[in-house]
């Protein structure tokens, strides 16, 4: 599904943030992405989200070299990817239902075709009672669950999560991780960036360890 072949990245004329990345991500796998602050986790996720291009090496995603993608093809590929941000990034003027349904709406699907699916998913993440609430009325945990629901509603093949437990209490963080595990069991490939090592110990998934811009894999 994803192959890094000697990939490097630097911003402008600055030093290399990532270098000599060589690894593969298989479909249906679950990987933690860990490393200290400033190690390049967010830059690696931005490469995977196609908002950055490698400055050296070759990155292949969904059997395509991302270097050759134009903007339209890139957006089309992005529709196979779900993303969860640490700071949620829900649209404040939309209800929970509308925020979660957004990836389907931008594909031009009529509301009638997805209404029941969105309601079902919101029930599954425990937000059925907040369907018409705007983000300002949701707690941190509810916002993060809404963000996760938005990321998975269009059934992406790849789900990226950038510190999804960073803004919630430890108990909720553990519940959210169980949610990701459940999604992975249903077939979604997941790469979850976190620096909360105590959470990782509860799950036996391979870790992509970033240190000084280089990655090592720990099974």
């Amino acid at each position, binding site marked *: 599904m994803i192959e890094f072949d000697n990939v490097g990245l630097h911003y402008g004329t600055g030093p290399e943030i990532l270098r000599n990345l060589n690894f593969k991500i298989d479909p249906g796998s679950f990987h933690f992405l860990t490393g200290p602050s400033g190690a390049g986790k967010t830059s690696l996720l931005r490469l995977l*989200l*196609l*908002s950055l291009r490698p400055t050296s090496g070759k990155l292949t995603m969904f059997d395509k070299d991302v270097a050759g993608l134009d*903007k*339209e093809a*890139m*957006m*089309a590929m*992005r*529709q196979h*990817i779900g*993303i969860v941000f640490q700071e949620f*990034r829900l*649209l404040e*003027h*939309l209800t929970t239902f*509308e925020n979660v*349904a*957004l*990836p389907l*709406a*931008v*594909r*031009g699907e*009529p*509301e009638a075709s997805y209404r029941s699916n969105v309601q079902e998913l919101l029930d599954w993440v425990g937000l059925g009672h907040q369907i018409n609430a705007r983000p300002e009325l949701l707690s941190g945990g509810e916002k993060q669950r809404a963000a996760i629901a*938005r990321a998975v509603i*269009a059934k992406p093949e790849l789900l990226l999560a950038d510190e999804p437990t960073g803004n919630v209490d430890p108990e909720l963080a553990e519940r959210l991780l169980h949610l990701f595990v459940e999604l992975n069991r249903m077939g979604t490939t997941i790469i979850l960036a976190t620096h909360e090592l105590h959470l990782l110990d509860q799950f036996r998934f391979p870790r992509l360890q970033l240190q000084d811009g280089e990655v090592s894999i720990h099974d």
Partner: protein
Amino acid sequence: MIDQFLNRNRSEISVVPRSSIAGRTLALLVAIMTFLSCVTFGAVYMVQNSAVAWSSEVGREITIQLQPVQGDEMTSNVRTAISLALDSPGVGSAKELTIEDSERLLAPWLGDEFDLEGFDLPRLVVVHLSDPRAFDRASLEEKLNQSLPDATIDSHKPWQQKLNAMSGTIVFSGLLALMLIMAATILAVIFATNGAMASNREIVDVLHFIGASDRYIAGAFQSRFFAIGLQGGIVGGAAALVFFILAGIITNYLLPSQNAEQVELLFGQFSLGWLGIIGLIIVVAIIAGLTSITSRITVHRFLAQVAP
């Protein structure tokens, strides 16, 4: 309400907030620009109509001027001039401007009691042309020269030319002002659109992250800006219509009759008529269209500069 209608057939989710400070500022700006454009257009339209009516009226009239002579000879000369005029092709009527008529015309400047009887004034014959194209001025001049060598013809041509030049200048200046207002509208819409896009940058980023194409994002913002342009245009156009109605009421009922006559001399009847109202609607449509096209180009430029 307008944007709800525009969004009905697109997507049920309104990705661009319906009300924002930037949106309200743009709507107010478009309303003001539309009001100025409509008032300018209305004024130009009325001056043009008035000038055409004046010019046409003046073009249908000539005056024969007879130098003063003593006694009954003057009366005979006037009759001869009227007779020669009536025999000419294209002439509908010819009548003498009597001393009483002259006194009435001069009354606003010389007063009602002023008596012209003691003055040796030229006598005038006013000739109304039923068909100005059939009228042959040279032929009438020749006949007058044979019978009344001192008679002269004044067709008001120089005055008509000055009037046309003046109205032409007003119309040209008005159209220039209209173009400048349109140009200012375009520039203001560019600034307002850029501001609105910058304030909605988070929405653009999130839409990009969930795979929305630039076409989708541009469409969403564009329909919002079109709705704003239309709302502002309708408000500005309606305000201009109210302005003309009030101006008509003031000139007809509130101003002293002499002042009202002077205003009417310049603008004609202070009323736009159906054609004028249709013109205002076209101005509103042009402003809304300009806002839409300008914001479309600005949004596409903004999206091209923003990394997805």
